[in-house]
């Protein structure tokens, strides 16, 4: 159970550079009223950032990020998408996606 000083320093510094980008905008933007155009622009950030996180996860494989449009992760995403659209249930979508992905991994197809 050792705790190397060098590692602790590293984690502390990592913590600082992780915390600042999370805290500064909250601190600055919650204290003043923002221009309307900026709020309208921010309105598109969530859907953009979520898609920017998920699409590469589905279509780029491995460290080399090889483009792969036809794989189980991407195929399961389609019915999961439809399920979310129809049910509007986040919990249900998570369970449904997990179940489909799990089942698909046990099917006797490559």
């Amino acid at each position, binding site marked *: 159970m050792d705790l190397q000083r060098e590692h602790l320093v590293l984690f502390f510094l990592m913590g600082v550079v992780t915390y600042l980008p999370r805290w500064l905008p909250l601190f600055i933007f919650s204290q003043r009223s923002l221009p309307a155009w900026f709020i309208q622009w921010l309105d598109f950030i969530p859907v953009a*950032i979520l898609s920017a996180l998920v699409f590469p996860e589905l279509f780029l494989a491995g460290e080399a990020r090889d483009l792969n449009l036809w794989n189980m992760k991407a195929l399961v995403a389609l019915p999961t998408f439809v399920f979310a659209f129809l049910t509007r249930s*986040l919990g249900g979508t998570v369970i449904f996606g997990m179940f489909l992905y799990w089942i698909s991994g046990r099917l006797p197809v490559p």
Partner: protein
Amino acid sequence: MKTDSTYTYRLVFSGFKAAWPICVGYFPLGLALGVVAQNAGLSVVEIGFMSLLVFAGSAQFIAVSMLQGGAAIPAIVATTFVVNLRHVLMSSSLAVHLRGMGRRFLAFFAYGVTDESFAVNLNRFRGGAWHPTEALVVNQLSNATWIVSTVLGGYGGQYIGQKSFGIDYALIAMFIGLIVFQIRGGIYVVTAVAAGGLAVLLGKIIPGNAYVVLASLGAATLGFAMQRAVKRKGGRGPAT
């Protein structure tokens, strides 16, 4: 006083109901990080400290692999900074819904802003009637799950099935659901597809994960411009 505490319980409970998909998704990831970190020579105590001080999954994975490769502290810290810069965008979006909150609350809240808690909380804020305390509960529950699962992984995560029941698909499914909930018209669909396409394209071309921020900025600006154009036409375009 009794109603006060009942109210608080209700907020904690509804925060819990919103956070569980995150926790389910974090668990296998945390286990995996614990295993990798232990293999890289970190002790269980160190793994716990890292998760407590940093709380940033992808940055922690990268840091551990850099540590194993013998990278120097400044290089790891700089990489962590760049990897986590995307949270500037998330906190900016969240700030709109946290106007007027005290500085101490914000300081505490900021600690728990991750891709996942941001997405869940923002979706709830949009739906209306989401209390900042509920949002804070989501952040803290995610954080607690993360710390516990990474430490567990450090103890012997290789013996726990991290892929059983499709648990490794939990976060992807959650993000897919949240994307669907964010879509409120054709312009949002175009924005989503543009961001995803740009991210895949940029992810292929440029190393690191700057593609997330660049694709988000580009697509959000595109969506904003389209909305402006539609409005200028006299609002006769598709409803947004």
